[in-house]
């Protein structure tokens, strides 16, 4: 794009959350008729950047301009009024309303006092036609497929005359074929002069559909150039940007040959089918796959949080696990990916959260508050939990410290097999490193660890062996020299063995 005016541009954007600065001088220009990909590791600042574009957050410093004019959005409504619409990863649709009701939600057409249903129907049909989407405008959103829901979101955006469309990982919830349909619509919108920005962890699709790529790392824009000048490899390099060996400690401990956990044909209805794997004592097993591939659900089934079928052996003994309590009594615990709504009771204190999982041990029969305090002292020391005040509520800790508290809570249960789901989601790089070290330390002590992660670098750096899931099944396994991002992505996307590499 030459000298066209940017539809939306950010310049010198800083943003802090409390004392933590997450964006540093971010500058991005979105041009009409251009598809812009924003890539970076989790926590690089992509979401914050998009939220600032969409008016969900305001920048601490810097300028947002629309069509060359500086603007200051106080809400997403103000951004939408200017034609800037953001589509979230979790759809913002009222499930019980129909497609057309959703398209017009909050902006209903009226005829006098009453709704003008006919006009809304016609306009919905026209919008869906424009998107080449065959969904029935009268269908309830609950009943339509995920890609159709995405189309409804886009129709909603078009209805508001979107000039800039921001999509947060639009393909994360889509199958390949569904993603193809989306790409066709993206092409269509591009040709209609809409400026598009999307994020994705799938570099091949970035390469395929974007015109320009901006790479973010640790809150900075580190690279921004036409897609044609980049390869998937150079994108990944720019994203990671640092020596991985610094981030991940060297594995020195030997892995025992004893099988700690053997799972055969584990089926979690609706989420996982015939998952089988073995885990040795002291081994770190990575579990990878796209979001929605059933990784979390499989493990939740394993520990009894979901109903499941299949056989599970712990230390060679067949066990029946129907509740997390059963699992814990066998030394198997699961650390959730969702620390805010499943991991910690945010309005309770640190001590209460720490001991919740192992409370029977502190009840003799009355709770031994002194022992609980000692456990908290130890946890604060061992896990370097930085709490300004030890009587504060868990919800007031920073994300990283919440994660450390959650890890401490799980470890208080003295597990021999621990499943850690997204160990470093949304936490800063320093804390990440501490958690990685801790995981390796655990394995060295003979604890078996399963790490579920969406961050490729994380599973590759941490795990001895990686199982890749796809659509609820084990798609394959990689270890040793095969532990490459490429190999994992191929398995995750169902491409089978690797043929020609893009390592040129």
């Amino acid at each position: 794009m030459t000298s066209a005016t940017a539809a939306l541009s950010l310049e010198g954007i800083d943003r802090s959350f409390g004392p933590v600065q997450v964006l540093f001088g971010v500058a991005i220009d979105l041009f009409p008729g251009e598809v812009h990909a924003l890539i970076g590791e989790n926590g690089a600042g992509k979401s914050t950047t998009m939220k600032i574009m969409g008016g969900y957050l305001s920048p601490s410093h810097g300028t947002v301009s629309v069509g060359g004019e500086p603007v200051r959005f106080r809400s997403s409504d103000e951004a939408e009024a200017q034609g800037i619409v953001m589509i979230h990863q979790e759809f913002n649709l009222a499930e019980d309303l129909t497609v057309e009701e959703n398209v017009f939600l909050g902006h209903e057409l009226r005829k006098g006092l009453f709704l003008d249903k006919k006009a809304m129907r016609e306009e919905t049909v026209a919008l869906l036609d424009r998107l080449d989407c065959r969904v029935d405008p009268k269908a309830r959103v609950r009943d339509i497929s995920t890609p159709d829901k995405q189309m409804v979101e886009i129709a909603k955006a078009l209805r508001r005359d979107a000039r800039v469309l921001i999509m947060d990982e639009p393909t994360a919830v889509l199958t390949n074929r569904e993603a193809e349909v989306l790409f066709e619509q993206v092409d269509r919108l591009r040709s209609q002069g809409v400026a598009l920005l999307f994020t994705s962890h799938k570099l091949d699709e970035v390469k395929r559909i974007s015109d320009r790529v901006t790479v973010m790392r640790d809150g900075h824009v580190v690279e921004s150039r036409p897609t044609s000048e980049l390869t998937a490899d150079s994108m990944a390099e720019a994203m990671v940007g640092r020596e991985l060996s610094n981030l991940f400690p060297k594995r020195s401990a030997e892995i025992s040959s004893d099988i700690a956990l053997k799972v055969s044909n584990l089926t979690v209805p609706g989420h996982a089918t015939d998952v089988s794997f073995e885990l040795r004592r002291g081994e770190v097993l990575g579990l990878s796959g796209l979001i929605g591939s059933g990784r979390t659900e499989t493990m939740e089934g394993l520990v009894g949080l979901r109903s499941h079928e299949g056989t599970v052996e712990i230390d060679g003994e067949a066990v029946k696990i129907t509740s997390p309590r059963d699992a814990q009594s066998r030394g198997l615990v699961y650390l959730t990916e969702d620390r805010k709504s499943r991991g910690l009771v945010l309005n309770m204190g640190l001590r209460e959260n720490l001991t919740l999982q192992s409370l029977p041990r502190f009840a003799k029969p009355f709770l031994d508050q002194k022992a609980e305090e000692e456990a908290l002292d130890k946890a604060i020391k061992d896990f370097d939990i930085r709490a300004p005040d030890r009587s504060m509520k868990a919800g007031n800790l920073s994300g990283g410290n919440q994660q450390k508290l959650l890890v401490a809570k799980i470890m208080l249960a003295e597990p021999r097999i621990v499943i850690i789901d997204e160990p470093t989601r949304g936490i800063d790089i320093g804390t990440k490193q501490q958690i990685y070290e801790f995981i390796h330390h655990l394995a060295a002590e003979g604890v078996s660890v399963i790490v579920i992660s969406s961050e490729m670098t994380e599973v590759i750096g941490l795990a001895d062996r990686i199982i890749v899931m796809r659509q609820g099944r084990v798609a394959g396994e990689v270890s040793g020299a095969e532990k490459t991002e490429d190999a994992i992505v191929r398995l995750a996307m169902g491409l089978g063995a690797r043929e020609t590499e893009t390592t040129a």
Partner: protein
Amino acid sequence: MSTAETTSAPTQAPRKINIQVLGPIIALVVLVIVGALMNSNFLSYANVTNVLARSAFIGIIAVGMTFVITAGGLDLSVGSMAAFIAGLMILVMNYLLPSMGNGVPIILVGMLAALVAGLAAGFLNGFLITNMRIEAFIVTLGTMGIYRSLVTWLADGGTLSLDFGLRQTYRPVYYEGILGISWPIIIFALVAIAGEIVMRKTAFGRYCAAIGSNDQVARYSSVDVGRVRILTYILLGVLVGVATIMYVPRLGSASSSTGVLWELEAIAAVIIGGTMLKGGFGRVWGTVVGVLILSLIGNILNLTDFVSPYLNGAIQGVIIILAVILQRGRKAEG
């Protein structure tokens, strides 16, 4: 003693928390002073014992309600349940009178029947809510109607009366006591102290608060959420049985108007005491203070002509709303 402990527990932003903690106590003290100033009989032995003994029924139930609400539940059926258990107890004792004769054993059997009935009724509520996954509000609204209707049916629309002789034997349980303190007051005090200890010092109490705050977190933390929930309803049911045991000797009868609105008074006492209606935080001593506040308002209005006693409900209503506004203050902070 329990007050001292509470003030030391949440130390974040101490000044505001203290107002939260002390609010109900200050209200109670103010009421006592106002009452004493307005009527010289207010602090008399007779009046104080009368107020406390009358508070005992609601108080015992409200202690159980504190656990249910703390764990994120609700029980609207307790008033009807009390009436039904009272009727059942009277029928059982009257039925056994010819075979067992008058005396202590038959009273004990009646008491046992009340406790078992309370346990069963509580279990039924808990089971429907936890295992059948029906809203607590709906389940207990249903059982509330069922028990009320059953007691009316058992009494054939009238009143179930305990045999006169039995009434004489049973009477001391309400009207007498030790060291000048009547039994209902003693039992209420024991239930309250035990409740406070269970809430604050046991895993069960901690689990109730955790489940009320976020039952998902509790589930992921290996807490048997269903079991704890059912237990709160069973505990409440048993305490309704205990309250009924203390209530029946007072009048020696049960009818469709027994225990009307007890559920709302118990819930009100719990809320005034500082327990959050949506669960996650509960304190039994607060509930006791809440019960006393509600009883004292009625008592003061009866003893003075300053305000019409007919306005009792209005004043209680204002106090409940004020208590909730104070609660919201605490929430906004956390």
